[in-house]
């Protein structure tokens, strides 16, 4: 029983990180949204596995919220907002092979940096904490190296999912009420970003974000 639990948890957490790395690899919006949705589902599965293991109804409910928001609602909203413009990441600031190499380095860094917390938490969950930190760092890489608005939103989501993964593994999730607030904030944040992206498109046309040069010192 315990080993099934450990395997399921490791698989789901691993899937979250793999999705993050795949984001670096794909260029079309449609594929990147599929990857983000998969990551959301994997994150929900982490929470679900933990919740079933400790028999915590609140955590299972959190897993449901997480699945609905991160796995379905957010990818769908981004898809709808970006739908009419076939958006591709044409010229990322760091090309794909280089960003994959960088992500490997980031994962090593994450394992080194999170060792303290990992041993403090202990057990299977603790061992997986670096996976969450690695997801967060890969999210930063996406944020700084991708120039299309949609990809920056995806980068933010990776950061968010990385932190959420750490939260689940460390503490079996923050209390349900707060988790609800956190998910709601994430959802609203994405909605606002997509509205802004649409306004940017109607104002500037088809642009890369580093072409925004109105404000500087």
């Amino acid at each position, binding site marked *: 029983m315990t080993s099934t639990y450990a395997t399921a948890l490791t698989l789901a957490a691993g899937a979250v990180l793999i999705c993050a790395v795949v984001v670096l690899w794909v260029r079309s919006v449609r594929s990147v949204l599929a990857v983000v949705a998969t990551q959301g589902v994997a994150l929900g599965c982490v929470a679900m596995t933990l919740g079933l293991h400790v028999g915590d109804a609140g955590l299972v409910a959190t897993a449901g919220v997480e699945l609905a928001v991160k796995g379905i609602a957010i990818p769908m909203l981004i898809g709808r907002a970006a739908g009419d413009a076939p958006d591709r990441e044409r010229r990322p600031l760091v090309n794909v092979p280089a960003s994959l190499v960088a992500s490997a380095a980031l994962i090593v860094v994450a394992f080194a940096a999170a060792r303290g917390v990992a041993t403090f938490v202990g057990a299977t969950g603790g061992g997986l904490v670096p996976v969450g930190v690695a997801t967060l760092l890969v999210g930063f890489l996406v944020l700084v190296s991708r120039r299309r608005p949609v990809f920056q939103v995806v980068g933010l989501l990776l950061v968010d999912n990385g932190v959420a993964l750490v939260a689940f593994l460390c503490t079996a999730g923050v209390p349900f009420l*707060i988790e609800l607030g956190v998910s709601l904030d994430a959802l609203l944040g994405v909605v606002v970003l997509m509205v802004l992206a649409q306004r940017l498109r109607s104002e500037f046309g088809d642009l890369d974000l580093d072409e925004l040069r109105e*404000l500087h010192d």
Partner: protein
Amino acid sequence: MVLDMILALPLLGGATVASCRHRAAGWAAVATNGAMLALGVWLAVHVVRSGPLTGADGVLRADALSAFMVVVVGAITVLASWLGVRTMALEVADGRCTPRRATAYGVLVQVFVAAMLLAVLAANVGVLWVAVEATTIVTVFLVGHRQTRGALEASWKYLVICSVGIALAFFGTVLVYLCALHAGGHSSSALDWTSLVSRARHLDPPVLRLGFALIVLGYGTKVGLVPLHSWLPDAHSQAPAPVSALMSGVLLTVAFYAILRFKAVTDAALGPGFSRTLLVVVALSSLAVAASLLLTQRDYKRMLAYHSIEHMGLIALGAAAGIPLAIAAVLLHILGHGLAKSVLFLTSGEIMAAEGTSRIDGVHALLARRPTLGGVFGVGLVALLGLPPFSLFSSELLMARAEFQVGLGWAAVCALAVMVVIFVAVTGHARHMLLGAPSTTDASASPPAWVAAPLVVGLVACGLIGVLAWPLSGLLQAAARVVTP
């Protein structure tokens, strides 16, 4: 009950604005905000006399520190919403803004204020986080209100950078929660301030250290501290003036309030050394960045924005000292800076509406042509630069004294050197804008008395607090005791 009412009043104002499209609705919002301020003052008096209050089933809690922050938020909200009526009336009159967008603006400002109040009244660090994140989401639309290219760019940068910051703050919060659970906290109450403080001695030092560093970095983003400060000048210069006033005057310090609370927990667990080092580093680098960018500034709203980074650096340095005297001075500085900075941003909005430019070299001889605006702007800068009789002078002096007491004298001297540079830079810009002889072709007019009155009142309040700290000293001392050992 009082706490619920304080939260509900701005929302009530928002609902009035939403349901009644008349201009008078704006005044209704001002009235509800005024009532909120009055309740805040009552709360402060009550809390100092008879201890903390709770509300909403323990989700809300007000001790002296929270009550003080409510008063600060209330005072600046009244100023900003008063001038907001004027700003929107002007924008609708000259067609820059549809009545519908003006309504949306009014509602969003009220929601923004309610979110800030929730942040300072939350009993629980999780609710605090949710509230601070909510302020970001609401203010994005306010920053982008004018829908120009610059405003859109500023709001995109603002949301992306602050979301990253706030995600890091959440990471830090999770780590603190982890420590609290291991120290025997129950999952439902482990995130409450009171339980965190009472368990502080049993929290695991290495994990707490990492958590606090992430919290300083994360909430520091919203405070405008280095390294994630770059959103601030853009957002503050592009937002409508009343929103800049609210963001610069209170939102920054509401985020700093979160750092102060976590600092109390960290200091009780680790001793003051760790948080002191961290805060001194971010404070001095923020001061340096602010000074270097103020020297070459060409835009007066951006000048005010960088000035906010400077003051947040000073506040962080004061908090680093950490003794009760320092914290009381920090809080006084929060109030003084809030008043002076919001008056200045509101005045700069009037100047911009009258002159049609935000460039420093586009405005000149303001004192001769528009004595009211020029006078308020000049006196506001005097207050902000820390000259007597304004309260920023006393608070800066007290902070420096506290810094010398705890052996941070060298940092205080560095800060003073930076402030001299900033003084020279800002007075140079101000001289260009305010002095000189008007040419005959220049327009000149003064704003109506109902617009000038709140600006003058704000500055007079800032001066009075500086001269007689009397109505506040009890509250300040009680609030400082909350977050010092």
